[in-house]
């Protein structure tokens, strides 16, 4: 088992003829992801790495039954591409595009809800269910099948931590990079719930960062609803207020969204917070041992 993507995923790649789209479509296909279609307006009929290209998501869905989409189009067109996928009946959309205007996301969020579409991102590295499907730009070789669920707001920090997990023999059910933008699709709580309900997942690692209060909400959710152990890490403890640390979401405004508050919330919820990434495997080992007592 796993969450969101697996062997049944039929992926369409929006923006498949662009530089990033082309590159990562190949990588995903190489990993074994079932890519059924690409979309690039005006290129219907062509194929790319054996993948048929369509003018629109609607055409792609009609011809191939695609149920999941990954988006590589430039930020200015990303919201439109997400709506196109959603309106075409795609159930899960992963938006890799970085730099999408916040109000575009606010505008499309209720429409996605109406259509019943789940969104991951934008500005995210995507997700992977090791051994089944890679839908994103994550480096496949660091992941390993196992029973740890993984959720993170960042990219390379995800790789750093997953690498440590894999080296310490903690394989993963599914690893999800939810992206660093302030207004994004699925968030910690949504994914914690999915992991809680996934029989294969035994524990969850959550990588938060400064800005917003998603971590605080996650902590509350964990305290109230979760039976599985969770271990956390928060990046940005030294970041100064009011500055945007690369991620649009990683900004501390007026005394809220600080690492201290987030760490306190997790501690209150009984979630151990690692001081540095290297500590995570050990914390995980301990929590799992406690759980099995």
């Amino acid at each position: 088992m796993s969450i969101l993507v697996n062997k049944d995923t039929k992926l369409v790649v929006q923006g498949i003829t662009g530089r990033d789209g082309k590159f990562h479509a190949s990588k995903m296909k190489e990993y074994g992801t079932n890519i059924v279609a690409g979309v690039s307006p005006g290129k219907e009929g062509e194929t790319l790495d054996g993948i048929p290209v369509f003018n629109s998501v609607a055409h792609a869905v009609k011809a191939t039954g695609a149920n999941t989409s990954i988006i590589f189009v430039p930020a200015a067109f990303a919201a439109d591409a997400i709506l196109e996928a959603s309106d075409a009946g795609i159930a899960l959309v992963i938006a890799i595009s970085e730099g999408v205007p916040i109000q575009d996301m606010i505008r499309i969020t209720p429409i996605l809800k109406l259509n019943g579409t789940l969104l991951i991102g934008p500005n995210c590295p995507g997700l992977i269910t090791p051994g089944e499907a890679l839908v994103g730009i994550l480096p496949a070789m660091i992941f390993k099948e196992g029973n740890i669920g993984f959720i993170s707001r960042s990219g390379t920090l995800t790789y750093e931590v997953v690498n440590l997990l894999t080296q310490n023999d903690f394989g993963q059910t599914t690893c999800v990079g939810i992206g660093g933008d302030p207004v994004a699709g699925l968030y910690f709580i949504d994914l914690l719930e999915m992991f809680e309900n996934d029989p294969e997942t035994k524990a969850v690692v959550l990588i938060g960062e400064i800005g917003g209060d998603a971590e605080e909400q996650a902590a509350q959710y964990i305290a109230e609803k979760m039976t599985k152990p969770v271990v956390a890490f928060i990046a940005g403890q030294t970041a100064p207020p009011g500055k945007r640390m690369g991620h649009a979401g990683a900004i501390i405004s007026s005394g809220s969204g600080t690492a201290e508050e987030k760490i306190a919330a997790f501690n209150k919820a009984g979630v151990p917070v690692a001081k540095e990434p290297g500590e995570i495997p050990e914390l995980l080992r301990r929590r799992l041992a406690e759980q099995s007592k």
Partner: protein
Amino acid sequence: MKIHEYQARQIFRDYGIPVPDGVLCYTVYEVEKAAREMDRMVVVKAQVLAGGRGKAGGVKLARTVEDAVAAGKQILGMDIKGLTVEKVLVTDAVDIEKEFYVGLINDRNTKSITLMVSAEGGVEIEEVAKNNPEKIIKYSINPLTGLLDYQARNVAMELFGNIKLAQKAASIFIKLYKLYIETDATLAEINPLVLTPENEILAIDGKMNFDDNALFRQPKILAMREPDAEELQEIAANEKGLAYIKLDGNIGCMVNGAGLAMATMDMIKLYGGSPANFLDIGGSSNPQKVIDAMNILLSDKNVKAVMINIFGGITRCDDVAKGLIKALEIIMTDIPIVVRLSGTNAEEGLALLKETGLPTVSSMSEAAQKAIELSKR
């Protein structure tokens, strides 16, 4: 992106929100001329991109032209939170019956724009939020409809309790929402919104922030950008595909990825050091990017050591190593550098770097400890 009060007031005015007259002045002479022409009590206000201007002495009431000149002399050139005041706004001193707060902000939780109003105007809203949160009325706006007339009116009724005033205020809320949407703002505050003894409602002070990601479609807003020296550096870095923020420490960092870059700063702190910057070089192994990053990093004279932390994902570490080697051939610096490479082809990368004699390590914590040690030599 932030703009000055005088710029926010201009946007308000363009959208029909009533704002008292004001003149932007760069010199004491201009202040005198403005005060003389206005021929009434004025306020002289420092225009710097920082909060707490009043507390810092950057806002002064002037009853006479002489007062205004004195205020101009005091304020022009003064330092507020490290920023030099280069211009002041000379504006009508409005008679105030009562002060209110009105703000719009993007709310991550509801994924919508939230209207916040309070009868506690004129003070920093963060203070009200901390001490009297019940005095702030928050209204989450449905993105499908925008701020509707009835909603604006109902919120305004809570604040004013009088339909005539509420209708005036509601009209301002709706204009503020319109300009917020049309300028891709991330914050729009009127603080204070004042009620005059004549029952007029005016926007006395304004603050606006904008979404950097939307500036590509906001040429008018972009044209208002007046970055200070630090921001210029950040913008220059951005144009090179780098995210750079200067900090106060002495260990320069160069990292791929924002989350990892923050974690790197934290790690330095954890081991007793102090990071000199946040610097994310993104996903490329292009040597030019590494050169640009090093140049920016080393332009900070506080930097005593550099920690390079790369986790190879799609980017291969040997490619990054090659970029680094080329970059260091060109840059030539005495500042000690420690390199950590991990992930895809890390071994090959480390092997290449060994030849250059750079200290290399394979974990973040080692790298941080080594960098701190080097910075103390």
